[in-house]
């Protein structure tokens, strides 16, 4: 019984290590979403005015919309390289279950895009005058929410990776599925900023994450099989 | 009938324009949903009759040879 577990663990470890190594050697993929986040956050005060009270009111929504867009941007390229160089074919042929491979790909993707966003979100939030008291809830909501976004985003990426013009299509496919995360996560931050208890929304986000972790890899695997076959 | 006259039914006390617009749009969409696919199928059959599509092509054959490479080829 222990041997298969050991081999699964070894596979998960090796796979995660490889993805992280690749991301480390190509840091632009990690930096770009963060830079995008910073740029768009800069646009909002210029667009709606610099009054701190007004910014603070809109901050939860702004932060989460930008996080959503950054995640969308990052999702698009998620499998592109692997598709083009043939790594996906080899992944499909590997004896390890594709479910686990999909999960590790997404986990690695989240570690290099969602997690940095979470860690830097207090900085962006401060720029937008979000009350300090709301920062822990913001970070927690980012932690849970960006993970859901990564999982859902990789479904779209898997389904569109073989298509020449996947860019607009992936937005159309994925943005409607992002909406519950936006609503509950921005709601949680808003509640926290107004001094209410945000734990129900955070629990709902955690529930969505559990559901996504359990189900999304099936859709990602199916999408990858279709894409490799159609290409 | 709820209304006293045709005029009253059309006006619906000022709301007629909204209600009848919705009725018109609904009618267009309902009719479109039924007519468009039916017409496309009919047109397809008509086209078939004109230029009579050839029978589906058979797959080209496959030959399996067992050869000793040194003597063969």
């Amino acid at each position, binding site marked *: 019984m222990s041997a298969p577990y050991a081999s699964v663990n070894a596979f998960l470890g090796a796979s995660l290590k490889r993805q992280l190594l690749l991301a480390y050697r190509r840091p632009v993929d990690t930096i770009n979403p963060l830079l995008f986040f910073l740029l768009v956050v800069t646009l909002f005060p210029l667009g709606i005015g610099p009054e701190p009270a007004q910014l603070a009111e809109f901050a939860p929504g702004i932060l989460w919309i930008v996080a959503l867009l950054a995640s969308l941007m990052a999702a698009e390229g998620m499998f592109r390289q692997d598709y083009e160089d043939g790594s996906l074919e080899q992944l499909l042929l590997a004896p390890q279950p594709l479910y686990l491979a999909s999960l590790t790909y997404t986990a690695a993707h989240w570690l290099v895009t969602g997690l940095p966003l979470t860690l830097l979100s207090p900085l962006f939030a401060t720029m937008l005058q979000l009350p300090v008291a709301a920062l822990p809830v913001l970070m927690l909501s980012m932690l849970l929410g960006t993970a859901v976004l990564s999982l859902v985003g990789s*479904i779209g990426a898997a*389904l*569109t990776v*073989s*298509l020449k*013009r*996947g860019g607009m*299509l992936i937005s*159309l*496919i994925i*943005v*409607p*599925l992002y*909406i*519950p995360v936006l*609503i*509950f996560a921005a*709601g949680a931050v808003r509640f926290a900023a107004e001094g209410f208890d945000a734990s129900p929304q955070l629990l709902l986000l955690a529930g969505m994450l559990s*559901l996504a972790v359990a*189900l999304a890899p099936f*859709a990602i695997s*199916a*999408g990858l099989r*279709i*894409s490799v*076959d*159609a290409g | *009938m*709820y*209304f006293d006259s045709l005029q009253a*039914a059309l006006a*619906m*006390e*000022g*709301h*007629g324009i*909204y*209600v009848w*617009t*919705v*009725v018109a*749009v*609904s009618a267009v*969409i*309902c009719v*479109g*949903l*039924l007519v468009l*696919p*039916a017409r*496309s*199928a009919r047109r*397809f*059959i008509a086209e*078939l*009759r004109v230029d*009579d*599509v050839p*029978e*589906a092509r058979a797959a080209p054959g496959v030959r399996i040879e067992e050869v000793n490479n040194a003597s063969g080829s």
Partner: protein
Amino acid sequence: MWTWFHKLGSPPWMYRISGRILAVLLPLTVLMLVVGAVWGLLYAPMDFKQGNSFRIIYFHVPASVVALAGYYVMAIAGAVSLVWRMKMAEVAMKCAAPVGAALTFLSLLSGAIWGKPTWGTYWVWDARITSMLILFFLYLGVMALYQAYENKEAAGKACAVLSLVGMVNIPIIYKSVDWWYSLHQPATIKFTEESAMHSSMLQPLLLMILAFYCLFTCALLLNMRSELLRRGAGTGWVRSLAGAG
């Protein structure tokens, strides 16, 4: 049971049987639509809060209900096509999408027009309307994905996966939008507060909902027949159909 299942997968059989179903269902649908519309528009009593604009309900609600149900039909057909590799289910899935999208569009448009006399503006971010808008995007996503794939078999599979993902998400989306709405706009007039609806208003509404379900079925079958012909081009049954008809 199995022979039935087998027959369901056969295009000529489906084409024939759908023709027979339509011969009955199509006139019935038109009749129900006309009767329901006349009943609702001219004979049902007026709602005292909203006045006569309330009569839009006889189009808006059936369109919304069937548009949502249509997504489930599409997703379940997609699931069947993935699990049992049944071509007919894939055809049904592909053909349900534009019908559902058209009904969603009708629901949005009638909702917007209804908004003007009710709220004084054509667009209000009401929970129902917002959910319908998201449903519209979901439909468009499936249709766009189908168009984007050159290989139509791959397109069918990809759309089946996407519509299943959408189906899992729809309840979450609807609940989240409900919560969001209650948060931002506590209790104003809702379109579909039917709790106190008088039966003389409710009966034509139920008839219209039934009529729209039948309309969906008819449109789906008609679309499927057209698609079956195109897919079967060059096969014997389509050629004989062209020769005989």
